[in-house]
């Protein structure tokens, strides 16, 4: 029995470390949970990408839920996310608003022209100051904001069909938004 004790201890460690590896592979270990979920989105007043003379404020968007997708032309992971948005943004059942983060408007426009524009509207935050109030620390990040301007859900990292189906869609249904069948 005593001879088996080290083996048992070793197997216990194998199970423990194996679980750690399995867990890490399924979670984004660098994701920092946002303290803003369930709280009002910060106020903002930002110019539109395609017409900087027009500004968009938080108050303008109240009244119905929307998705705020933080992206940038310099952001590598945004390139992975973009085809997913192109395919699914219009099937989600709510407007997807692009939040161009610390980007040159000309670069963003060229990027959207080259890869397609899935957004109902694009606002730009060149300094990134407003993004700090949203707790943005990288791109892409996606916020679900309800009709009262409350942040209901946040996803850090690229949206994938799996994330949309398993995490975002249930949150949308809670707000009374019906995504198209197949999502």
């Amino acid at each position: 029995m005593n001879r088996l004790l080290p083996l048992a201890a070793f197997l216990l460690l194998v199970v423990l470390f194996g679980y750690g590896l399995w867990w890490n592979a399924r979670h984004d270990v660098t994701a920092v949970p946002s303290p803003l979920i369930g709280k009002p989105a910060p106020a903002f007043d930002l110019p539109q990408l395609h017409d900087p003379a027009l500004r968009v404020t938080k108050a303008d968007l109240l009244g119905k839920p929307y998705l705020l997708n933080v992206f940038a032309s310099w952001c590598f992971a945004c390139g992975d996310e973009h085809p997913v948005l192109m395919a699914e943004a219009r099937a989600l059942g709510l407007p997807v608003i692009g939040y161009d983060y610390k980007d040159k408007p000309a670069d963003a426009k060229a990027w959207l022209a080259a890869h397609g524009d899935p957004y109902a509207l694009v606002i730009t935050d060149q300094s990134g100051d407003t993004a700090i109030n949203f707790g943005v620390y990288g791109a892409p990040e996606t916020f679900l904001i309800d009709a009262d301007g409350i942040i209901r859900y946040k996803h850090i990292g690229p949206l994938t069909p799996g994330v949309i189906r398993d995490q975002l869609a249930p949150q949308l249904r809670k707000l009374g938004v019906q995504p198209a069948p197949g999502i």
Partner: protein
Amino acid sequence: MRTLLLALALLLTASAAQAGSAIDALPFKNVAQEQRFQHLTGQLRCLVCQNESLADSNADLAKDLRWQVFQQMQAGKTDAQIKQYLVARYSDYVLYDPPLKPSNYVLWFGPFAVLLAGAAGAALYLRRRTRADATPADSGDEDW
């Protein structure tokens, strides 16, 4: 040989100075304020490079957040108020010294629990061994 050593020493000091902290050339009012800034940003974690402090990181966001900290210092905010500003946006994660609360009890007490478990295991083992020594009849354990 001596010149080689000297060159090596110079190289080391140069790289050490570079690694010291990211430099933004912020217009501090005085040395005390700069020291307070360095101390405060050294206690805050960069969200992008999560193993670096806000003081050391060259990430773009770290630069922006240092500027926020600097501006709030100029506006007369206390260290606690500035930390609260960042925690409200980025959660306790920005603090290298997180506050004690139920959601992070594991973080605070986990290591002690593991230490206690180890100590209990060792005590159990030692007690059994002294008992085994007292009765040397059983030879089954000897080739250990």
